């Protein structure tokens, strides 16, 4: 299997404390990987180090690339949703084409096509010409997801992309990620909603205090013992005709 993301012994230190502790991970085409773990488990640090945005030890095939090649290999949607100026939605999404444009170039027809695909996927047609900073938080998040989609890279990494979205938009977004993976790309996305993670990810990686403690199919990762130990959580999990159903029930803290 050719891995689109290959991490080997990746560690990140804040001071002397490891926040990512010797994580190895390979993600191949067709996979939609959900990165789960409680607050402070190291999800964001792992993603940022894998992209080379954070000083780290160990290897990441993406971080090893020069900046320009990296931007054509992996798209990144950070957790902080920042749109500084009143640029219209279409122009924000078109920023995703930055790595593909020739020097000083304008958008070519293929770039416009990629922007249109991303707009359709995130159902943003009616927002196209509105200033992005006039939209609501959830709408801005959808614009920024579309921006990452427009980059059309083999690997898409997103840090809590569905936080703050309405339930329908959350499901739509996870379905979009699933479809992208099914097209032969790879998606790595950190999530707090374990129910959506169980239903829409092909694979889950569970982080606890910087270490990857479980890796596999959602049913195999979300065991009662691990949920109790890592999340301090008791939950209901079952397979139904409507697919896997996961519902957290009570906190064990």
């Amino acid at each position, binding site marked *: 299997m050719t891995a689109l993301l290959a991490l080997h012994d990746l560690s990140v230190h804040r001071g002397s404390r490891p926040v990512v502790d010797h994580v190895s991970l390979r993600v191949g085409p067709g996979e939609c990987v959900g990165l789960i773990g409680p607050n402070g488990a190291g999800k964001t640090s792992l993603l940022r180090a894998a992209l080379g*945005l954070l000083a780290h030890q160990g290897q990441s095939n993406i971080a090893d690339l020069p900046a320009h090649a990296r931007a054509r290999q992996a798209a990144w949607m950070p957790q902080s949703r920042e749109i500084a100026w009143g640029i219209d939605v279409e122009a924000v999404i078109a*920023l995703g084409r*930055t790595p593909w444009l020739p020097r000083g170039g304008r958008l070519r027809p293929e770039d416009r096509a990629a922007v249109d695909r991303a707009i359709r996927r995130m159902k943003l047609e009616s927002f196209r010409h509105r200033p992005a900073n006039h939209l609501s938080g959830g709408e801005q998040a959808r614009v920024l997801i579309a921006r990452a989609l427009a980059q059309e890279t083999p690997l898409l990494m997103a840090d809590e992309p569905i936080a703050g979205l309405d339930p329908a938009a959350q499901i739509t977004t996870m379905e979009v990620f699933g479809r992208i993976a099914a097209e032969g790309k790879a998606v790595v996305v950190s999530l707090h909603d374990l129910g959506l993670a169980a239903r829409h990810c092909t694979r889950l990686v569970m982080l606890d205090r910087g270490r990857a403690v479980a890796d596999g199919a959602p049913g195999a990762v979300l065991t009662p013992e691990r949920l109790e130990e890592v999340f301090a959580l008791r939950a209901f999990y079952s397979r139904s005709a409507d697919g896997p159903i996961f519902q957290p029930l009570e906190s064990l803290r």
Partner: protein
Amino acid sequence: MSRLMPLLTLGVAALFLASLLIGPAPVGVLDSLSALILDDGTPMTLVMREIRLPRALLAVIVGASLGMAGAAMQGYLRNPLAEPGLIGVSASAALGAVIALQTGLAAAFTLALPLTALGTALLGVLLLLALAGPRGASLTLILAGIAISALAGALLSLVLNLSPNPFATSEIVFWMMGSLADRSMTHVWLALPLSVLGWLMLATLGRGLDALTLGEDAAQALGIRLTRLRLTLVIATASVVGAATAVAGAIGFVGLVVPHILRPLVGARPSRLLFASALGGAVLVLAADIAVRLILPDRDLKLGVVMALIGAPLFLHLIYKTRKEFA
């Protein structure tokens, strides 16, 4: 947008022409221009070539520099309150100029003052880079800039404080108000190469500044090398602002107000704003320099004063108009 750039270009051309034609010597339009182009041996050729032409050229150079650097600084910091003086270059250039005036060096030869100003501006930038480092965060850059401005300001006050000579003191105070009067082509040739270098460097930043709209992390993941962008920005801003301050003194508000006015007209795109602000800055400084000559022709009204008098109310008006957006 499509009509903005031609309009601004037209504005620069028209005001440049007006700047050439306005002055105390009462000469007709055609006579003035023919005296500029053909050396007809009359004093008018001297007036046009040695007094009015450098003044108009410097207005364009200084205005374009301040406007463009302001747009770049606001784009980099994603803050509409940023201005090119933020990194401490104008304050350190002013310090050099004041030292040259105080020591009498300025009277020794024409370029003594601007060269000293450029020298201290360079020292200021080196100190900034040493403090904020080429890899420093944007906040470190601002804080280092403020510290350098404060230090240069304190030293400047010290020079004034200890000045035994009231004439030198008044000369310093008037110089600090900023002006384009009585400059020669020598000043143009001093400022032009540095300014052009800075403009070319700033012009390369468009794509990176656009990407920075999404924040530093997202921009880096889009392939933008932030370290290089920051270094280019600092060196380019230092070149253009250092050169502008060295030949014209401290002229505020251009770098703050011009990008702010033009931003809505370019769809808020930082890359487009760079070039629009260069032209807009030239328009504003040319207009203010013409106003200086028309309002009180015999009182030597200073450009920096008029600029602040135009700029501050304009800024107040903008804040009044956009205050709902910040709420």
